[in-house]
């Protein structure tokens, strides 16, 4: 075990997995010489060579498209998209090929590629460095999605993604890249996809969250300590979703507030609410509330705090729910 920041845990996972499996390679813009704009890939080029940590041309569809071909040649590419909103040029390859190619071969070929990217807001950045695009990915068949909120999970989920035979997208909450710090197991460490984590136990309300919204939900739970006992469920994996843990928690508390940075309409909180509306309807003692980003462009950073879910908004939702 050693104390690491979240982004360091990502770097650690890459070192361990590239060491372990000579068919794993890292590719993306500025991942090599620079070691990534967030230093997530620092040291890889020096250690594993320029062929296994590849500075690509500035072309996201090209990155993901060639990664599909690399899989067919026997590689397990880990593609970095430099920022959330710069991954959109690759959506075409994602939807029409990454998510479909295994099916197209009737399961005869695997496409064990990983897409990882820093995502989310709150970092006082220029336009389009703040998106939470998970809906575009999780809605796409054939693609799995995981989002860590702790350094240990950042390492373990990425390792799981690299070893998984299916394409997996890992969104890394850049807001907490260098604030989330914690114990990370040394060497090989795998956190299986599809298992949620109870980040905090409680009995009155379940706060469902993932990524940077987990520490926020924890802070909100703390702030509410005198009023309500909040359980915080860190989904970790959006697809496969750990429905059992979700239903168990809401079955116990009878109330759910789902927190997500992304714009509300068809965001993942809607999926969570829909699962609850289908499978927990008789457990629910009140409405399922969503605390989310809004259906507007992510704003200029001087007012981004008004857009991002906040402790106040979560607390307000919990209070409303408890007052019903």
């Amino acid at each position, binding site marked *: 075990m050693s104390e690491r920041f979240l982004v360091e845990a990502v770097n650690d996972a890459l070192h361990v997995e590239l060491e372990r499996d000579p068919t794993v*390679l890292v590719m993306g813009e500025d991942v090599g010489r620079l070691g990534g704009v967030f230093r997530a890939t620092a040291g890889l080029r020096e250690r594993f060579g320029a*062929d296994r940590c590849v500075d*690509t*041309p500035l*072309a996201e*569809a*090209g990155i*993901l*498209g*060639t*990664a*599909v*071909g*690399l*899989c*067919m*040649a*026997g*590689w397990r590419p880990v593609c970095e998209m430099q920022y959330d909103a710069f991954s959109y*040029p690759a959506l*075409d*390859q994602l939807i*029409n*090929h990454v*998510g479909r*190619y*295994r*099916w*197209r*071969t*009737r*399961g*005869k*070929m*695997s496409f064990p590629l990983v897409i990882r990217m820093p995502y989310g807001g709150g970092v006082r950045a220029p336009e389009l460095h703040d998106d939470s695009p998970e809906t575009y990915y999780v809605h796409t*068949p*054939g693609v*799995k999605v995981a989002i860590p909120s702790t350094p240990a999970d950042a390492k373990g989920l990425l390792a799981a993604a690299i070893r*998984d*035979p*299916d394409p997996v997208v890992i969104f890394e909450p850049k807001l907490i890249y260098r604030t989330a710090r914690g114990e990370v197991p040394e060497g090989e460490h795998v956190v299986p996809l*599809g298992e949620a984590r109870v980040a905090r136990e409680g009995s009155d309300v379940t706060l469902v969250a993932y990524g940077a919204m987990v520490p926020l939900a924890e802070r909100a739970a703390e702030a509410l300590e005198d009023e309500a006992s909040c359980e915080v469920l860190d989904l970790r994996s959006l*697809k*496969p*979703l750990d*429905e059992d843990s979700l239903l168990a928690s809401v079955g116990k508390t009878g109330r759910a507030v789902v927190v997500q940075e992304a714009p509300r309409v068809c965001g993942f909180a809607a999926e969570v609410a829909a699962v609850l509306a289908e499978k927990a309807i008789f457990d629910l003692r009140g409405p399922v509330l969503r605390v989310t980003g809004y259906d507007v462009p992510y704003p200029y950073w001087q007012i981004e705090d008004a857009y991002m879910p906040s402790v106040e908004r979560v607390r307000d939702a919990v209070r409303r729910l408890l007052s019903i």
Partner: protein
Amino acid sequence: MSQVLPAEGGLRRVIGDGESFPDGEVEGLGPDELLALYRNLVLLRTYDERSVVYHRQGRIGTYAIFWNHEAMQAGGVFALEERDWIFPAYRESAIGLLRGMPVSTVLSWWRGHPSGWWNPAEFNVASICVPIATQIPHAVGFAWGSALKGEDRVALTFFGDGATSEGSFHEGATFAGVMKAPVVLFCNNNHWAISTPLSAQTAAPTLADKAIGYGMPGIRVDGGDVLAVYQATREAVARARAGEGPTFIEAVTYRAAPHATADDPSIYIDLERVEVEKENECVGRFERYLLRAGVLTEARVEEIKQEALELMRTGIVEAEAEPPADPGLVFEHAYANPPPALADDLAELRRVLGE
């Protein structure tokens, strides 16, 4: 930086016209090879013509006709080794036939039946790529990845003139140049993208002129001349194998058939030009060349065509004999480890279907 020559102006040709333009020949191609190539052309032609009939008979669905594209397909593939990979567009749906894929497999694809979906590694033929140009980066990635592994495998990808406008073409070609990938970018320039003429597709003087922008040679060849196509591709493959990187081949032809069975080109196409093209279609051109050269006789022609027809007859029977697909297949193969929700969905579907 490797030296890049400007794209060629004229079209390379080997096959003569029996009159003013004399027949050439391709070094290294003896009678056996020439016959094998001819057999491939006839196989593709027969597949195509029969497919149109099967479509009319309601035995296959919508079908993308490749009539008069056979020289590009057969000539290009003939320059490859079996270990080399082909990345087809939908226009090359039957390219697997040249790699021993059963006719029934390709027909099944057009019948929307699961047995039409093959394992690329079995034939070294990637899946049919329906979205335009998106297979190009796959071919490039495959070639680059193979070279990285020290494997001697070249990738060849087919695409149309229209495809050169897509960002995917550009990004694939850019990667190919930078990675010096052993890949051949083979453009079938049939002058049309459905109803869009080449002049509305690009202002480039020729498509091969795009090659220099990726640091690769651009070759122009008569797409109706299977020997010229073969020769040009062989050159490109040799470059690739020698570690000299990608080549762009523009094979020039004119679409003489509808885009697909659902299309009526009479609204937009130059019908006179189509007639000229039909007269000069590629299988006949090669056939006459071989007859002139004495490699082929009329009797052998007939035999080879009958063989191909026989293959088709068996193929459609086999395709139609496939048992109906199990609806449960909907849930197969999407994931190696599917999310648990899929099992519930399947159970629900089975219940609803009363199974």
